[in-house]
């Protein structure tokens, strides 16, 4: 359940990026998640909503873009097409062994979307 640690980091980075204004409201957070990142998407979403419960980010939506795996094959001298449903890291074209991953390990916060309106102080504590 390392997704909990990752969600904690995600929240910390988001908080660190918030503008210096009274109670900025985060509508959405967009992350890029590689299919070979060893992170389970549902577990990460659950961890995020668990950790944000009762906080200003309670209703923030976590938008996750899945990035497929691609490897570089030294024999074919090219980066493979996307590999879905990882069975091995062999080149899908020539079946040569390669551990050289070029895409699919992403675990990145891409952007944060903030509500523009000034917060209504009476509705928030």
């Amino acid at each position, binding site marked *: *359940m*390392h997704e909990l*640690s*990752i969600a904690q*980091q*995600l929240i*910390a*980075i988001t908080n660190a*990026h918030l*503008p210096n204004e009274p109670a900025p409201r985060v*509508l959405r957070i967009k*992350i890029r998640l590689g299919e*070979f*990142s*060893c*992170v389970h998407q549902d577990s990460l979403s659950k961890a995020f909503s668990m950790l944000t419960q009762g906080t200003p980010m309670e209703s923030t939506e976590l938008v996750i873009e899945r990035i497929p795996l691609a490897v570089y094959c030294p024999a074919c001298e090219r980066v493979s097409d996307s590999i879905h449903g*990882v*069975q*091995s*890291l*062999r080149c899908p074209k020539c079946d040569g*062994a*390669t*551990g050289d*991953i070029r895409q699919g390990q992403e*675990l*990145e*916060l*891409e*952007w*944060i*979307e*903030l*509500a*523009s*309106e000034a917060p209504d102080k009476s509705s928030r504590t």
Partner: protein
Amino acid sequence: MEPRILEVRTKILKKNDELARSMRSRFQDLGVFVSNWVSSPGSGKTALLEVTLRELLHRGFSVGAIVGDLETDRDAMRLARSGAPVRQIMTHGCCHLEADMIERELVHLPLATMDFLFIENVGNLVCPTSWDLGESLRIALLSVTEGEDKPLKYPGLFNTSDVVLITKSDLAAVCDFDRQATLKNIESIQPKAKIFEVSTKTGTGLENWFDYLEERRRIDSALTHA
């Protein structure tokens, strides 16, 4: 008014990665060769680490270890029998070690005079994969009792490992261990991985393993101080 988008574009584990990077250069400056041992529970990490500590001490090196477990200091007690300084991290449920957990233990170890630091991660084939601990060598252990398809089922760890130690080789025949399939599966995930087949019980393969560690430290140190 429109909502505002703040472009961030940062790695979520950036803080850990940066700390690990600075620890790695500190280790290299001090001439401490650090390895991170990862495997499922029960693969024989502690037993192999215990004989490794003993042998390197016998060869005249200064060694130390940090060991992570959910609970208890049993592994630290076992490793400390070698005479090496050992620190136990109890994660209380956390399934992996992170760079800041290691950093907190460093003040308790004689780093300045140390040649090897071994980090025994929490027994888990998934979660430790994403956390760089500042190591120069990541070691995955796979015991013959676990089955040959482990590298394919847990490709993240095996892809990021420099070394795969196939342990408990004395049990290979009893377990109908398929050696060729195992080697092929490791190659499918990380063809550059250096593979050793060892038995802590009979001593098979251990000399090669100890020699390799010594050689890797020598190369690492030559590269750093070139």
